[in-house]
């Protein structure tokens, strides 16, 4: 099976405390550590496991700039055969539909049996996968947490629904699936693996390479734009204990006791 996984590089919020920049129109990006969007990494692992069983190749693609090559290489070190950077000034300011439009053009110039995205980007809206499917007129399923290849024509997939229940569907290929975290255990990537793929060339494709009409992407095509970031005023907010650790420990035990805890 030929599988395309759409991936995105995002600020790693488990590593960083986010701050707003002075203009309030963005987060402070200078000292941020970036990494691959978490569910996208699970999507790549799932794709690799599928081709290990059925044969084929995994390609990873991202719409972004030069800096984003880093995540393509990381996923190539995991085992993806090819990385593709979809990059053009005209893509700047794209909304979700714009990103999906760019990805669609790339897919149409190639052949994939299966396209995976993450459920949601950390700075995203859980939209690109479903839009890409609709633009391609492929079937779509979101929140996928299991994939079984039935035959060359279809898959049996599980979707995570409320309460941890699983909705099982059959879906025809080619299709687009958005992958939920926890579907597998992504393999570890060490520095050695990254070095091994360091010299593989990553093609960069522009709007004209892809045949993307510039008016449909970037700021020109965006119907939805972010105006600013802000940190909302705290609700009632917690009473923050100001004591030393020992004092705080005692206080918490006391509070829990008062509410019927501690035998």
């Amino acid at each position, binding site marked *: 099976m030929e599988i395309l996984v759409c991936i995105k590089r995002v600020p790693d919020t488990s590593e960083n405390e986010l701050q707003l920049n002075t203009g309030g129109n963005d987060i402070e990006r200078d000292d941020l550590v970036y990494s691959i969007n978490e569910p996208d990494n699970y999507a790549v692992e799932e794709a690799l496991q599928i081709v290990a069983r059925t044969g084929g190749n995994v390609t990873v693609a991202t719409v972004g700039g030069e800096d984003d090559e880093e995540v393509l290489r990381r996923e190539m070190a995991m085992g993806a055969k090819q990385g593709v950077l979809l990059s053009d000034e005209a893509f700047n300011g794209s909304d979700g539909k714009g990103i999906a439009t760019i990805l669609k053009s790339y897919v149409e110039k190639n052949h994939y049996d299966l396209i995976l995205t993450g459920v949601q980007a950390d700075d995203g809206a859980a*939209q690109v996968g479903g839009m890409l499917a609709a633009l391609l007129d492929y079937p779509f399923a979101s929140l996928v947490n299991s994939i079984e290849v039935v035959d060359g024509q279809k898959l049996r997939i599980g979707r995570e629904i409320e309460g*941890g229940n699983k909705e099982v569907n059959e879906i025809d290929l080619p299709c687009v699936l958005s992958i939920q975290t926890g579907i597998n255990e992504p393999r570890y990537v060490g520095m050695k693996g990254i070095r091994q793929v360091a010299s593989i060339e990553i093609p960069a494709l522009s709007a004209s390479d892809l045949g993307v009409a510039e008016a449909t992407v970037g700021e020109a095509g965006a119907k939805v734009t972010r105006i600013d970031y802000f940190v909302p005023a705290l609700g009632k907010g917690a009473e923050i204990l100001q004591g030393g650790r*020992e004092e705080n420990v005692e206080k918490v035990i006391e509070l829990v006791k008062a509410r019927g805890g501690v035998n």
Partner: protein
Amino acid sequence: MGRIFAYITHKNGVADDSALELAMAARKIDPSASPTALITGWGSAIDAASASVASSYAEVWKISNEKLAYPNAELVRKALVQVVPAGSIVLVPHDHFGIDLGPGLSVRLNAAFVSDVLAVDATEGGFLRAVRQEFGGQVSAHVRCDLSSGAVITIRPGAFKVPAGATQNGTIVDKSAEIGALESGRRYIETIAAESGDVDITRHPILVSIGRGIQDKDNIAIAEELAVALGAAVSCSRPVVDAKWLPKSRQVGSSGQTVKPKVYLACGISGSFQHLAGIKGNPFIVAINKNPKAPIFQVADVGIVDDILEFLPEMTDKLKQVAVG
């Protein structure tokens, strides 16, 4: 501005709570609007659900079709595209169904798409200004959405509070005949219930709940020891389950369990809305997190800015001393 529709999800003939929340959101988008409910399904279930929704919407558009007995988002999308007029605004709850339906529906309606909206600020000159969150709730953002060709907007569950009263005596309009044959490359087969685990976290009055801040599988023991000393059970957030450090049955949240403890100790949990959605019954929440800006501190009763890997063992030691002494 186009007509506003609210897609009603329902189960066993009962409309979801989101039915009223979407009506509220519609009024925020356009105070003069009389939103129309859109409901799909089959048989007595859709009839019962439509009848109940008519008490909160002036008009209910009903699409009854055997193929829609289970809400397969692909088929629902195909049905809605047949009846929703161009330029409309369609509201959908932001849950596992809305995530499935919304993006593709917006493409097919050639409408804008805004997901997981928490609040609506204003609608001006054909633009909507709405509030969403990014980075797991660490920051909020205002977004501007061009409504000129309509919009599909998913609404965060629980964000739009519903006032009591205000009942309608709505009419039900049967749109079933306007839907052609419904086919999709995705077919629903069955629903498999979540496995129940070794510990039933839904029944415990005290939960020591751990998040990604626990950092390593080996550190789970720290939480377990504290739980023993406190007479509590250990629950967790999603990343802990994703990493296979604890079984799925211990996960609190929209895709895990709904818990109703008296006391909830949130340890190294940032406080995303999907996690908070699983905490009910207004427990006393103590949050321990090393990031003073973590969103969990907005909902907790008491907060401690500290490292859980040091704080929790100290709490365990203290409890043991008290027990001995």
